[in-house]
């Protein structure tokens, strides 16, 4: 099994790259505020410092939020409401399996980490809690590496050691990784899965379905390399070896084989997109590291990134 570091990932910490992300925020279907006394998805129920509104007291309201001044002046029972604290947890799951390093000149892992870092930076600008989780399959078990949650931009650079030092290796065990993530019993939040999804449909369906079942808001960023997406391999007869399983197959590259390769990738991506659409998962493709800026401009809005 091959392990590689990503040279592209270092770009995620360049000021010029980060300047492009200023003013962006990640949209979420869940409200960032919660009302006191009601179930919220926030970690701190009723907490907050920013007043939002007043309403009449109802039975069962917490008397701690009763506006005593209004009662004293007007003898009116009213309850003060506050905007909830930002408690959205954003988990960026990055596929660190061996397939992300192949073909080597495609640098899929670097593309995934750069995009993930960009999303993390956007999330941190809203003081959301952001963490990276890298998953890959080791010998007989899943390898899940996670960073601590960080919520402020000032701490963005703390992700640098993780992003720069992450190595690709092992098998893609997406369902296993998702299962381990769910077992951590974190509060529901946003999970952005960045992978080439070169697994069986049942595997990613199980993984993404499991995350949805744990009430996470799931977004999918489908990463592929330039050569992979075009099928542009040097012509000739080769014996190809799956970098994760070691399985061999005799293939003769040529115009026909390239066309077949593109066709199979399109079918695979369409299947993933269709699944995501059915399950309300935001799907965005990111094919080719050379199109990084274009991908961020065009595909990030599909993930709910907005100004």
């Amino acid at each position, binding site marked *: 099994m*091959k392990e590689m570091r990503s040279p592209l990932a270092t770009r995620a910490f360049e000021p010029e790259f980060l300047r492009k992300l200023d003013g962006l925020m990640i949209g979420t279907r869940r409200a960032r505020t919660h009302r006191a006394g009601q179930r919220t998805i926030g970690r701190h129920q009723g907490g907050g410092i920013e007043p939002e509104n007043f309403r009449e007291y109802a039975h069962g309201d917490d008397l701690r939020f009763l506006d005593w001044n209004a009662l004293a002046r007007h003898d009116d029972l009213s309850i003060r409401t506050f905007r909830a604290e930002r408690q959205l947890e954003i988990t960026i799951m990055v596929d660190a399996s061996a*397939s*992300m390093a*192949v*073909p080597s000149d495609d640098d*899929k892992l670097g593309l995934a980490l750069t995009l993930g870092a960009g999303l993390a930076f956007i999330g941190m600008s809203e003081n959301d809690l952001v963490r990276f989780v890298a998953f890959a399959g080791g010998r007989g078990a899943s390898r899940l590496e996670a960073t601590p949650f960080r919520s402020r931009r000032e701490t963005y650079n703390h992700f640098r050691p993780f992003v720069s030092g992450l190595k690709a290796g092992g098998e893609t065990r997406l369902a296993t990784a998702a299962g381990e993530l769910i077992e951590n019993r974190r509060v529901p939040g946003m999970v952005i899965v960045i992978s*080439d999804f*070169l697994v069986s449909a049942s595997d990613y369906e199980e993984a993404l379905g499991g995350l949805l079942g744990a009430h996470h808001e799931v977004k999918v960023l489908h990463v592929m*390399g330039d050569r*992979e997406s075009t*099928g542009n*391999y*040097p*012509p*000739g*007869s*080769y*014996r*190809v*070896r*799956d*970098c*994760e*399983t070691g*399985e*061999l*197959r*005799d*293939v*003769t590259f040529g*115009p026909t*084989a390239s066309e*077949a*390769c593109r066709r*199979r*990738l399109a079918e*695979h991506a369409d299947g993933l997109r269709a699944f995501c659409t059915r399950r309300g998962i935001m799907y965005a493709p990111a094919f080719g590291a050379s199109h990084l800026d274009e991908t961020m401009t065009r595909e990030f809005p599909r993930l709910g990134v907005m100004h």
Partner: protein
Amino acid sequence: MGLLTPLNLLYALSLVALVAIYLRARSRPTIEVSSLMLFEEIPAPVAKSRLLRLDALFWLEALALGAMSLAVAGLYVRSHQAVGPNHRHALVFDLGAGMGAVGENGITRLSTARQLALRIIAQAPAGDQFTVLGYALEAEATHAAGSQAPDARKALAALVPTAVAARPAALRAALIHARAADQIDLFADRPPPAALIDDAHVGGRLIFHKVGAPASNMAIVSLDGGVPRSSVGRCVVRNFTDRPQVCELVIEAAGREVFHSKLVAEPRAEIVVPFGPLSAGGIVHARIATPDALAADNQRWALAPSIAHQHALVLSPDAAVRDDLARVVLAINRNFLVTAADPARPDSFDHARRYDLAVIHDSAETGVNAAARLLIFPPPLSRSHGVLVPATHSVAIAELQERAGAGILSAPVLLGAARVIEPPAWMEPMARGVGVREHDSFPLAAIGSHNGDAVGVLAFDVRDHLLLDPDRMDALVLTIDLLQRLLAPRDVMIEPTGTFVTVAAGAHARVTAPDGSMRPLEADPWGRVRFRALESGRYLVTSNGPATAVYANYFDAGESDLSAPVPATERPAPSVATAGPSQLSVRPIALPLVILALLALIGESIMLAQRAVRWRAAHV
């Protein structure tokens, strides 16, 4: 098809290297991919066939290497090519006696060959060049190369058969002379030996035209006039056909018939016809009056010795030699009165007499007056009647190797001691020999005419009864030939056809051939003219002095046999059809092979360039 230098075919081993390179290239390289789900596997049967179906680049490279290897190895093709314009033809004719044989249609074999040649000339494109060659005793170009058809027709018309047997060496020389031609047409009445064709290296271009059908022929093999008034003469007649033949034989002597009778000859048998004894010496002429296919061997001449008593003197210091030489002289003409004397006793013979023949053995000038003299084993610086035959040194044992009339002997005859003589220019050698363990040959016998006297010399010693030794018969034959030529009349000569005849003549000599044609002859400084008698019959040499008649006899057992099959020991040369002028030629195809290799390489370059464009590669 063949190879000029097969060893260079080793360059074809480069094909092995090419195959090895391609096999190595065809071992599929392994590349790593992110997942096999993006790649379709090629079905197994197709994959197997791909192992054998190499791409076009391989075949082009193999073609280039193979073509270059064959070009270096000198691949050639052997093919019949139609004779095109400006080709060179060589028309080679057998001019032996057999070609003069007349067939049932009344024309000679040479005429038939001439008609075939004329047909070839007529069918040849304009601009073709012709060489006309004839051979019998030797090859002779009757028409030079590079001549056009009209000149060749004239040369064909000038061809005449000779009364000699065609020699294989002459045929070989003619073929070698014709080797520069693109097509060689050989016209003969019998196929040439295959070994001879191989030697001349013309096998691919030679077309043999066999002319003449088997024909019956009778020939006079030999004629001996006998000794007049003493012994009968004999004439031998041979039938060369496979059935009995009737011939009418006429023998004349001194202008009147001595024999005239019809004979019946058994198939392939000889008849010995005795006649005489003649009443007088002189010319004896035998002829077959019955016409047959070949006329050249139907007549023969012989010379009967004179009936007049002649005086011969034998001088030798050895009594046994005197006795032997006297026997030999009497064997030639028993009318001789032989006086044997010892040179140490000058009073033992008559010095005043002019002898008809003097045989002087190992003795110096003794003042003998003779019309003809034979010097045997002459001492150094011996002077005989003013004739100097210098002897430089002696050899203990000499070998007789070559004799006139017999050519080079199959086995040298071991003689006794000999003196190395230097015959003067007016003498012609009759035999040559060599000293044992020496390399340079020297004359052993010579004959010439000096001041009207005939002089002969034998360089070897005849002691110890050399002339009577049956194992050394060639020495006796040589001595008899020399004596007969010394005793022959000055105005009559009888020679076999094909030999050079030397006749004493003055200025403005000319010779009249048997067919009546005349031609001038130029005498040498010693007053001799030489010509070669190629027809059988009577030649007459005239000059300011008396005329000399030369009778040329022809007989050759092989040539006169007009129905002779091909000898079993000789493989006949392949006969090529006479119809349609074509030739078998060897044509190297190195240039087409090189062009093929270049085309293959150009094709490969084009394919590589196309692939580079298709795959957007900066290099191939």
